[in-house]
């Protein structure tokens, strides 16, 4: 095996700026008249009891470990923060997150995580049929979308969305139509102390805080939960930062892009790593490998305890405590009671 994947991963910080900065800034300008509340106002609201929170990503462990089913049964009273792609899975399980986080500026795809009322035929883009984030979408896209539209319409008024100014206007339309309350923030694109910084220009234009997002919405949700909401004990589910054993490469999120970049050598870009607890061999592509490296760098600096309750995946290392979900929920419940009663 070569280290091709790791070498590509080292270039993804700049590549991400290339991917999202221009379209994110463009969306921020379009969204500007619709900004009413800042993320900082969300921090003033009561989101669950105590200082514990669960952050829900949409990785394969969510289904493999029945994490949501177990969370729903546990009577957890802390804050529940979900990424946009996990919203459907949460609602189907009867979990209404306190906060949903959305950031990706893609103009067509992201609205689907909220149910797209305008979608009448399955799109040519096979993104939702191909990847693992919501298996329901792979079965019958039209029916899955219709069901999600109904669920989001039913629960929208109970949900706050921590929405980045980079979000596509279609996502803003959909969230507002469903009655969701929007709390805005800027993605931190670059060093705001450097001349010409885009982050600084956005802050000067709209006055919103800039959040260092760590490459993906799952990490951004974790950052938001401790750095903006002030939660101190955070359990992660569905944040695997990798693909489960046996996943065909063709089903991975960046497969077409890797083939385009590397041709016949695309298989060399996947990185296989054993999970030290489950002893399963998971794997990542360069993007997920970069996300993992960034998360661990941030976790070492974070003013919170981070519990990886995914019971799988590739997120382990200094700053991340491995725990079963049940153990975390039990401890968090005791701590919540202590916080609540003084």
């Amino acid at each position, binding site marked *: 095996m070569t280290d091709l994947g790791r070498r*590509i991963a080292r270039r993804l910080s700049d590549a991400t700026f290339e991917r*999202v900065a221009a379209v994110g800034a463009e969306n921020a300008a379009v969204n500007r008249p619709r900004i009413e509340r800042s993320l900082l106002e969300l921090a*003033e609201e009561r989101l669950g009891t105590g200082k514990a929170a669960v952050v829900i990503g949409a990785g394969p462990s969510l289904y493999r470990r029945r994490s949501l089913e177990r969370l729903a049964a546990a009577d957890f009273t802390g804050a529940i923060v979900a990424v946009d792609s996990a919203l459907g899975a949460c609602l189907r399980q009867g979990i209404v997150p306190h906060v949903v986080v959305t950031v990706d500026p893609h103009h067509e795809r992201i609205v689907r995580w909220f149910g797209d009322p305008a979608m009448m035929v399955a799109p040519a883009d096979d993104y939702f049929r191909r990847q693992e984030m919501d298996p329901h979408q792979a079965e019958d896209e039209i029916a899955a979308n219709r069901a999600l539209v109904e669920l989001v319409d039913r629960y929208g008024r109970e949900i706050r969305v921590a929405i980045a100014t980079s979000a596509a206007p279609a996502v803003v339309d959909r969230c507002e139509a469903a009655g969701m309350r929007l709390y805005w923030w800027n993605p931190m694109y670059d060093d705001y102390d450097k001349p010409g910084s885009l982050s600084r220009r956005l802050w000067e234009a709209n006055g919103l805080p800039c959040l260092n997002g760590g490459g993906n919405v799952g990490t951004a949700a974790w950052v938001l939960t401790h750095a*903006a909401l002030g939660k101190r004990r955070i359990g992660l589910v569905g944040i695997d930062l990798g693909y489960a054993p046996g996943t065909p490469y063709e089903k991975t999120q960046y497969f077409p892009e890797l083939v385009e970049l590397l041709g016949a050598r695309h298989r060399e870009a996947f990185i296989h790593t054993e999970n030290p607890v489950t002893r399963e061999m998971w794997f990542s592509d360069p993007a997920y490998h970069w996300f993992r490296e960034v998360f661990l760098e941030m976790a070492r600096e974070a003013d919170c305890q981070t519990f990886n309750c995914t019971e799988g995946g590739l997120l382990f290392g200094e700053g991340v405590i491995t725990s079963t979900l049940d153990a975390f929920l039990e401890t968090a419940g005791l701590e919540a009671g202590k916080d609540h009663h003084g």
Partner: protein
Amino acid sequence: MTEFLKGNYELKVEIEEKKEDAEASAIDEFERKALSKLGGSICFVSKKGFLWTGDKNDGSRTTDRTPAE
């Protein structure tokens, strides 16, 4: 300084970009575009705090990681 560095003469030969340089440049451009599709949905800014709420009135930088309480 820049006025001193301006060329004040005409070259008698036309300088062409080497074929290898042009190819390398094309490959770089392809890689840059292809890599951008592999990037994430949000940037990561190394050595900066988690949340920047702007410059404070006293001019100091708010790079702290102190969350709202």
